[in-house]
């Protein structure tokens, strides 16, 4: 009986979510078509979607799997370059080339995720963070020295197939990413992923294939980073290796931390905030980095402070008393 009502409410919940998605889509389309806001704001719409995809996918690796990776921008750059090279060189109608580019970009990033993940995920915590950072730098310096990626000059003249005029496709990709990852997290696989985070040894003892699970989550995370990279490439039209440095990885991490590790809703809200905020605080571009760092430190100190414990206790007490009443 309980199960039935649960199902019903989740159907209702899904209905509300679907409606919400459609409403957001409608509103953004009206804004774009009616040119209700300035160009500056319009050009932020796609970066918001890109950051949402990046943050949600990093959250899978960092928030749910519990492995801090600092090379997310590296996977993004692999996707971006792969997708851009395909649309630049393929003799196909543009939409088809973009579709192929998206698939190839994602798969290439996933492949690199696999190649890097298999050896690296044997490491833990701090070491893993550093090695992923190192890999991000290696990817950057290899792209910098290859001729096919045009070295430090980068690629230019990529047709802007995913800028705000093509919002529909970007929006669909974002929604699909969010839905896929949040469903994955709630599924059996997702619970396995969380079990590895919560206690690796216990998970292993209960028969969870820990390395396999880690690699799976890592590869999926890399795949979506690659997709975000392809969208990025076809939004700005110019690619340079320096676009994907360590700072970009940190920016994504800030989004995930600000939104709350292991919270997809939080990642989405934080992605919107972090993308829009610098634009509002324009002219204070130097302050942006300072703000990021203060946010990171303050969030961590707050999350582990006594104030937070007290707030949590109070909230629980209130819940209890409400139940009793």
């Amino acid at each position, binding site marked *: 009986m309980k199960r039935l009502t649960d199902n019903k409410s989740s159907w209702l919940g899904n209905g509300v979510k679907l409606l919400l998605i459609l409403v957001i889509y409608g509103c953004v389309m009206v804004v774009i078509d009616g040119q209700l806001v300035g160009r500056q704001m319009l050009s932020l719409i796609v970066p918001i979607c890109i950051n949402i995809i990046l943050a949600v996918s990093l959250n899978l690796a960092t928030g749910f799997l519990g492995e*801090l990776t600092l090379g997310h921008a590296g996977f993004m750059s692999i996707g971006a370059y792969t997708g851009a090279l395909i649309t630049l060189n393929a003799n196909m109608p543009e939409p088809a080339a973009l579709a192929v580019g998206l698939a190839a970009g994602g798969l290439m990033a996933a492949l690199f995720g696999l190649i890097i993940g298999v050896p690296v995920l044997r490491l833990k915590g*701090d070491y893993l963070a550093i090695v992923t950072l*190192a890999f991000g730098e290696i990817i950057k310096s290899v792209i*910098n020295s290859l001729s096919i990626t045009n070295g430090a000059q980068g690629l230019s003249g990529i047709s802007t197939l995913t800028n705000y005029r093509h919002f529909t496709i970007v929006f669909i990709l974002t929604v699909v990413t969010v839905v896929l990852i949040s469903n994955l997290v709630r599924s059996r696989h997702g619970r396995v992923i969380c079990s590895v985070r919560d206690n690796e040894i216990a998970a292993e003892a209960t028969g969870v294939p820990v390395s396999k699970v880690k690699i799976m989550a890592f590869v999926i995370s890399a795949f979506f980073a690659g997709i975000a990279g392809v969208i990025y490439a076809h939004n700005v039209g110019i690619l340079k290796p320096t676009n994907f440095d360590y700072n970009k990885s*940190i920016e994504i991490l800030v989004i995930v*931390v600000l939104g709350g590790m292991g919270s997809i809703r939080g990642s989405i809200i934080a992605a919107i905030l972090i993308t829009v905020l610098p634009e509002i605080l324009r002219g204070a571009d130097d302050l942006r980095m300072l703000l990021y760092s203060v946010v990171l*430190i303050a969030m961590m100190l707050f999350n582990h402070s006594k104030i937070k414990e007290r707030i949590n206790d109070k909230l629980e007490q209130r819940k209890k008393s409400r139940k009793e009443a």
Partner: protein
Amino acid sequence: MNFWTNLIEQIINGLRTGSIYALIALGYTMVYGIAQMINFAHGDVIMVGAYALYVFSINMSLPPVAAVPLTIAVCGVLGILMEKVAYKPLRKAPRLAVLITAIGMSFLLQSGSLLIFGATPIPFASILPAGAVSLGGISISVTSLITMAVTVVIMIGLTLFVNKTKAGRAMRAVSEDSDAAGLMGINVNKTISMTFAIGSALAAVAGILYICQYESLKPTMGALPGIKAFVAAVLGGIGSIPGAMLGGIVLGLIESLSKAYISTRLSDAIVFGVLVVVLLVKPSGLLGKNRTEKV
């Protein structure tokens, strides 16, 4: 003949860069040994040291004899402050939280100096005497000689300090087991602060030697030597002081030789490749202790 002189000069270059890496790596390794955390902001302490030296010796036009100790003091205090503000409240928190805070700290220092000094690199004339010593057809710059000499002196001093003094014994005790050390009457907080101060002071020395060699200042200058020194610390076995020294020298040699004989552009990739290989083959490093996992 030509090949051999070239090789020897590259090796000397490697030893010079390697000594700087070793000095920075010592800070990583000491802090890791005592607080079980990677101080991500350690690389940026080098940058703060470099800017501090610039302010003291150019803006306030102090002689090097006064500017250098002041720089070291500034960094030592910075190390203590960092520990008190950001890391101490998180001592019992999960490691992920500490690591993210350290990344935040690193960003804070970088963006702070970006706000104060701007992004354009500031040229800085070396405070060390220019010139070179010629030894059998091989010329060694005075900067290199001083860098290596300073490093050797510091290494000997540090080894003596850690092994022979009471404070050094306290440090070793805290890194072995901080709770037990506390019960034996060691002031754990003070010892940890002292470790951060020493590590940061070494980073300041490294920063001074670094800008005397590269003669240019920018807010992100600490990031790359910081990461490379971390690689050195891991290579030698993190937590081990002789390991950090060895790792730094080895890494400097690898970098300088790969720059000379393989590719300048890929030398960073090679250095990071070394890190990956070391971690995969022998995660405890060359001189590190193996630790078994307990439930």
